Each structure stands twice: as C-alpha cells, then as structure tokens.
C-alpha cells in the first residue's frame, strides 16, 4: 500500500515536473512579430533564406506583423516585351509559419517542418 502510494505520488510529481510540463513546453502557438525592427527583419530574412537554401530572400518589413503565415513564390521574371515568362503557374507556393514555443520565436517551413529559431525577434501569440 505504501509502495503504491509512493508510486502514484512519484508519478504525479514526475508528471508535474517533467512530462506534463514538457508537453506544455512543446506546444507551438501561431505568433506575430511584436516589435519589428531592422535587426529582426534581417534575422528573419537570413533564417528563411537558410530554410530555402538560398543566399538571400526578399521579405518585407511587414512580414509576420499581421499574420502568422507567409507565402513564398518564385521571382516573377518578365521577357523583353514585359510579359511574364511563366504566366501559367502550377507550382503551389511555399508556406512559412511563425510560432512561439518555449518562449522562443521560431520560423517554420510548413511543409517540411524545418525551422529556425529567431533569438533577436520579439513575437507574441496571435
């Protein structure tokens, strides 16, 4: 009886201190950038470029300030007469998400779920 009580108590304590709190820590909530700055935008561009395997990517300063998601598409190239080279696009654009997990602001590729932590960026739950 004493052993059972000890076991239950231990399980509850374990749950409270590790398992349950670990579960809580792993929840990623959709977020937006709280205070966009030049530094946070540079950090975001570097992170997304890294996730795309590109040297650079153009991301507006307003990105993730009103929405927790962002679409990425090919640069729309035009021919000499001004027409889009590819005006019939069948590729689905890529989607990136901004989330908060464990107090950290994180940008994720929604399909591959690869992610990068954004240490400088301040964000809050949407």
């Amino acid at each position, binding site marked *: 009886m004493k052993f059972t009580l000890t076991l239950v108590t231990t399980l509850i304590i374990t749950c409270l201190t590790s398992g349950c709190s670990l579960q809580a820590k792993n929840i990623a909530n959709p977020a937006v950038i709280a205070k966009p700055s030049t530094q946070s935008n540079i950090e975001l561009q570097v992170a997304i470029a890294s996730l795309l395997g590109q040297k650079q*990517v153009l991301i507006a300063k307003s990105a993730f300030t009103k929405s927790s*998601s962002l679409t990425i598409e090919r640069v729309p190239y035009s021919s*000499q007469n*001004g027409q889009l080279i590819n005006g*019939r*696009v*069948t590729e*689905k*654009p*890529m989607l990136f998400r901004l989330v908060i997990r464990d107090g950290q602001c994180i940008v994720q590729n929604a399909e591959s779920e690869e992610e990068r932590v954004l240490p400088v960026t301040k964000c809050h739950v949407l």
Partner: protein
Amino acid sequence: MTLSLNSFLNKRVNKELKKTFSTLILTSTVLLSACGGGSTSHSPSTVSGEYTWVAGTFVDDSTLDNLCVGSSNGSALTEKLWLRSWSNDTYLWYNEIDDQSPASFSISDYFTELKTNALTPSGKLKDQFHFSMSTQEWNLLNQSGASLGYGIHYHFQQKDVSLAIPRKITISYTDPDTPASAQSISRGAIIVAVDGVNVENADDDTSIASLNNGLFPESEGLEVVFTLQNFGESDTHEVTLIAERVVSTPVQNVKTIDTDNGKVGYLQFNSHIATAEKGLVDAITRLETENISDLVLDLRYNGGGLLALASQLGYMIAGDATTDKTFEKLTFNDKYPTKDPVTGSTLQPSPFHSKTIGFNAGLLTAGQDLPTLNLTRLFVLTTANTCSASESLMNSLRGIDIEVIQIGETTCGKPYGFYPTPNCGTTYFSVQFKGENDQGFGDYADGFMPTQTPSFKSEVQGCIVEDDFSKALGSETEAMLAAALVYRADDSRTCPEVSANKRAQHAFIHNIVDSAFIIEDKRPQSIFFNNRIVSLK
C-alpha cells in the same frame, strides 16, 4: 497538376540522383560495349560511346541529362543534343523544328533554333515564348508580391526611330502603403527625368544605365529624384523617392457603381499571386452582399500567375454554371495524347475550384466554400498585358457559355505553357502544352480581340478602347470602364468611336518588336521585378 515548391526542390535532388545513375549506366554501357557486351540502345547516335548528330535520330534525352561542358563526360555537343532530344520529345510543335546539325551553333543559339518559325493567322510568330535563363536565378524565391522599389508600376513606350515613336514612361498605377502612394504619385504621370537624366532623349549607355538604376533600384535606401509631369499638365515637378521593400496588392479598387439598371461591381485584379486568394474572396463576398447584377473585372495589367486562382475566380463569377464543367484541359504534342510527358500522370481536365485552397493558411484556411456571384455574363477590361492565366479565365468562362464582353485592347495571346526544365545550369522554357476550355477551344495565339462583329472564336464581343491614363482606375469616367457602362446601359451594346488608324494600330500592336538596341537591367534579379528599357538607337 499542382506541384508544391517543396516537392520541386525535392525533385531537384531526385533529378540529381537520376543523372548520377544515368551517368553510371552510360559509363557501364560504354565499358560493356567495349567488352563486346551490354545494351546498345543508344547506338543510333553514339559512336564508341561518344554522341553524334544523326539527322532524324534522337536518343532519349534522359541519357544526355547534365552531360555538361567542362565535365569529364560532357561537352557542348552533349548539351546541344540534350536540347534537341528534349525538344523532339516534349515541344508542342516538335515536328515543325528544322533538325539542323548543332556543329555550327553555340548552345544558346542552338536552343533558339529549336522552335517553330510558323506564323499565326495575323502574321506574328506562333512561338514567342522560347526562353532560357540561369537556373540559379530561376530558382530564386521571394515573399509573394515583394520587390525592391517604390510601389510604382510603369508603362513603357519603347523608342522606335523608324516609326517616330519617342521613349515614354508613364505611371500605370501605384500600390497602397508604398513610397509612391505616400507621395500621392498619380496614374498617368509621365516620368520626364530620373536623377536629371531625360527619359526621352537618353541615348548613350551611361544615361540609360542611370535611368535603369533609378527606375529599378538595387539597394534599399537609394534616393532618386523623379521629374514628373502629371497627365494633361505642362509643368513638371520633382519628387524624391527612397527605395524600400514593397509588397504589391493584387486586388484593388473594389467598388459598386449604381446604375439605372442595377448595381455594377468593379475590381482591379493585377496579378495571380498567392495573396490574391484572400483579396478575391473578400472582394467577391462584398460584391455578393451588395447584390450586383454585373461585374467589370479589370485585368488590363494582369499578366497571369497561379492558374488555380483563375479557376477559383471563374467559379466565384459563374457559380452553378461551372458544376461538372472543365476549367481547362491541357493538351501536349501528339506523342502524348493521354499522359503528361513531364509528370507522367494521365491527362485529366481541371475543374473550376469551388473551395478555398488556402495558399496562405494564416489569411484563409483551405477547404471553405468560395463565395459566388452566379453571373451569366462578365465584362473584362484588357490590354496587351492581359496574358496567360488571365486569358485562361476568359477562355474557360466562354467555354461554359458565360457571355464574356471584352472592353479594351487585344490580349497577349498565350494559351501555352511549359515546365521550366533545367540542364547544366540553365533552365529552358519551351512550349509544351496548350490549354483548352470545356468546348475544346484554345487557339487564341493572336490574343482575344474585342469587336462588335465577332466572326472567329478568338474574337470577343465588345469594344476597342485604349488604356486611359487620364483617369484613375475604377473611375466611372475612365475610358474602358466608361465604355463598359455605356455598353451595358439598356443593353445598348454601343462602343466609342475608334478611328481607322487606331483600329489598324490595334491589330498591329503585337508585331512591333524592338530588338535592335536593348538596354537591360542587369542587377541581381532576386530583389526586384525585372523590367527593361528597350530602345532603338
């Protein structure tokens, strides 16, 4: 049909593996052949393991994949032969290619030869869409609608001395929340000079470079002085703009116009980019609530983009009429009557999408019912910049007997598409398919032409009206919108007078190709929408 960019990037990896295997197989074949064994399936064009050109004989392009100049097993010849075999396999008009020896051509020149030279009924080249560019450049991705600039969309009138046409740059429209809108730069203003360099008279490399630098800024924070002349005014004024990262607004100017015979909705749809899905849903929801009886869809600057958006908009306009109907069916060359040569999938007609796709799930989740206006006719405003997916929307609606009334200028004429295909660091764009509507029509290579007396399927009931830079887009007095309103008033079907000269110019508009002296914007392409000033010296 839709392939995600993520999948595409994975496919690139798979393609690399495939190429590695192809190389290994080729090497093995050559080695085994040398030993007197193995397959000689590539033998028609190979001599002792080396590829040669044999007229009328084509090896499978996959065996030539990425056998590049500078590699141990590749050469300029193998790159050219890959282009030849790939074109012979998938080019829509492969049987109109003159099978020339590649010997005397560079790789890029040889690619230029691998197309049809046939003409459309109006006399323009049937294939004006044959391109190649660096794969590294083509693969660059940016935030949807983002570019570096001022939020200005330019209309270029190219200089042509032989036709006494001066160079002229006009503001066609600006995007909200941009440096241009903050300075109240208005549609129709002429850019007289950029940083003191006169636009009309610039005729040397330095001046042209200066114009390009100002119009298409390379760096954020660049300050440029624009000398502007507002429409109809003789005075000029200077505006200093600072380049920044701007985001375009693809759906603008949504409004309802009260008329004696019902409400007319108007919306300006500039680009089929991902963020347009939410904009279109919001616009149609609003117009549905306002119970409009007609819609004027302004596509004059819409060069296309995501086909799925055109399909959705088709449903949002026509609603019930789209049920069980084909939005578009792709047809490839006669080697592939039933399957897509690139994806390998069986050819299936694409329906009109009646649900949200959720391109940006944070703005709009997937799988929701789209709003619809359930209209039986549609007014579209067009110019030569109305292209590809925009034309596909017009064609698909006509295919299900929605009355499309076209006000404006002839569209660009691009019922064609391709799968951009990389090889040896270059991505090639060679027409591979044509889109057809529910009635099997897709022959509008000369563009859709507005006329009051249509005789051919590519001629559309409507009026020829030139783009009117004197008025704001969405203004009821702007010439195209005004013509649409007059046309529908009491169903008068009357059009503004057009001079014979203008009518002739209109018919000829696509044939003016200025290529004698091209001044290109050569800055890194990842940070701006590329445009060019083209001029004759």
